[in-house]
């Protein structure tokens, strides 16, 4: 039955990716300009080159054949070349996505490590001062626009105090060979004498963007965890377990936490899509060389092949992350595990 559910989820994944590919494919025709150059990224061609491209992109066949050719190229990693740089879009994406992922993953980690315990704490001190303090701080963080927060932090910590740099991933002093694309991992892997200093420098660069990006998901998790805990603590089975003789600590550890945190896991997964969107803004502000900044630059420059490729890559990531989160949640929750066959 659980296998059945996983298959169903994979089926859904397949259809969503199919739709996504159709959408991306049609963008070439919807964008202004020549279809052929939108698809390939090559403009100002002479006659011989045009003939070659026409043959490759099958623009003279019907749409279906063109779509199949498009899928074939996508699968082979030929995503066209960027108008702006003339380099392969696929290579750009491969180079840039780790930086975005790294930032998002750290931000998500921070938000889980900070948000969930704070939410639990607030619920444990419901309506007393720790709860009031945490809840009102969360509201403030929740309603603060992140570019404003980013500018505030830059003003205080970069310009005034000079504690943290305001842009980039690592100081230009250090030449880090990119193997995984994750800067911290790369530094660990690269074996040179200033390893520790480079690490410290990279962490310094990471601090502000991570804080800015983590703010929103942290406040969401604080509020969600608190609500979830309060709801669970009000359930009959908690009251009766208490009457059975369990003290407050046992109650929370043995019964409340597991029931309350299951929906939180689902929520963490759902945060990922919001996070990627917010990461784009953060990347622009902090000149973080990730896919978000590149995508926004491409939009400004009307670099259609890059926009298509970037959109597709980001959407793919979000779809996969969402489905993974759902799967984890279902595998962990005995109730939904049992009802899995009833879900789409």
């Amino acid at each position, binding site marked *: 039955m659980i296998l059945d559910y996983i298959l169903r989820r994979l089926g859904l994944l397949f259809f969503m990716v199919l739709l996504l590919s159709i959408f991306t494919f049609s963008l070439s025709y919807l964008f202004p300009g020549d279809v052929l150059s939108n698809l390939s990224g090559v403009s100002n061609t002479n006659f011989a080159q045009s003939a070659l491209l026409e043959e490759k992109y099958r623009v003279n066949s019907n749409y279906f054949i063109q779509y199949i050719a498009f899928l074939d190229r996508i699968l082979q990693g030929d995503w066209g070349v960027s108008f702006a740089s003339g380099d392969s879009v696929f290579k750009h994406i491969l180079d840039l996505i780790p930086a975005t992922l790294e930032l998002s993953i750290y931000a998500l980690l921070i938000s889980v490590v900070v948000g969930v315990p704070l939410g639990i704490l607030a619920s444990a001190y419901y309506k007393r001062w720790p709860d009031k303090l945490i809840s009102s701080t969360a509201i403030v963080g929740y309603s603060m626009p992140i570019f404003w927060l980013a500018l505030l932090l830059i003003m205080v910590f970069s310009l005034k105090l000079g504690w943290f740099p305001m842009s980039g991933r690592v100081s230009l002093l250090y030449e880090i060979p990119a193997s995984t694309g994750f800067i911290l991992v790369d530094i660990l892997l690269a074996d040179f004498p200033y390893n520790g200093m480079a690490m410290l420098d990279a962490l310094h660069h990471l601090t502000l963007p991570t804080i800015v990006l983590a703010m929103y998901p942290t406040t969401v998790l604080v509020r969600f965890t608190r609500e979830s805990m309060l709801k669970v603590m*009000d*359930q*009959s*089975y*908690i*009251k*009766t*377990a*208490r*009457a*059975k*003789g*369990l*003290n407050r600590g*046992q109650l929370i550890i*043995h*019964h409340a936490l*597991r*029931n309350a945190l*299951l929906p939180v896991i689902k929520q963490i997964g759902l945060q990922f899509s919001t996070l990627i969107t917010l990461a784009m803004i953060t990347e622009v502000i902090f000149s973080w060389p990730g896919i978000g900044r590149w995508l926004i630059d491409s939009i400004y420059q009307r670099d259609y092949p890059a926009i298509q490729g970037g959109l597709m890559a980001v959407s793919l990531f979000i779809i996969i992350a969402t489905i993974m989160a759902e799967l984890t949640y279902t595998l962990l*929750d*005995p*109730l939904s595990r*049992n009802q899995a066959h009833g879900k789409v």
Partner: protein
Amino acid sequence: MHLLDIRNLTIELQTAETTIRAVDRVSFSLKEGEVHALVGESGSGKSLIAKAIVGVLNERWVITADRMHWRGVDLMRLTPEQRRKTVSQDIAMIYQDPSRCLDPTAKIFNQIAETLPEVATTGFFLKRNRARKDRVKALIHKVGIKNHEAVLDSYPHELSEGVCQKVMIAMAIARTPKLLIADEPTTALESTTRAQVFRLLKSLNQLKNMSILMISHELEEIVNWSHGIHVLYCGQMVEAGPTQRIFSQPRHPYTQALLKSLPDYEHGLAHKEPFYALKGTIPTLQHLPIGCRLGPRCPQAQKECVVAPKLSKHHGHSYACHFPLIKEVK
């Protein structure tokens, strides 16, 4: 000394506009080793009283009582922590909605095991574990579950309501409490296990001197071994007294109606003769009639009944009615 002694217990629900009084000045007491029955139509507030004693009602309910003494200690005056300790040590309850009272994400074994009293065993970890397992197994056999392996390894939603109820019973008797409150403990069970559960409770009462407050519709099951009956209507105690007296001389029209609705009461029911039942249904708490709450449904009602009757007491038999029935001599 009374084991449990309750005076004027009132339970109210605080809503945005009004307060709804679901239980109105109910008093009763219970001695050690006694079995008492709390009867009344569904919705009359039986479960609320039981939950108020154990202290598992939500914050929304306001509970007041002149006294709620447990072995001379007023539960209402204890701090929540002291109260939890006292109650969990001496009182256990079988809840009416078993599946909602079990943690949906914990296996049955763990839920029963954590109810077991801490025994100061000196053995090794493994040995202690073994002992716990055996005790859980023994408990679950006692309540009539045979395939213990499968049940103990399940989550509540994987079991039927009947099995959940049996698990609740096992948990309730795990600590051999001084008082067991059984809130319709057999509603979800089939008739053979029903009898088995009643036998189990009876033997616990007789062998372990455990007092029982039984909330049940099955009057015929408990009439032989209960000491007192308390009849509740719309949150008010309408009649209370020793079982035999209530059965032989019910004074309140509502009690009489309850007794008459028993299939073999008076042995007078001919083949396919309709059951005796009061007309109408129990009024909702928002629309209580003035005066005697039974008024609109009462066959005896007269003009005086618009004034609420007071509880009068004769020889430990109390009732609240202006026109009590005097049993006609046959």
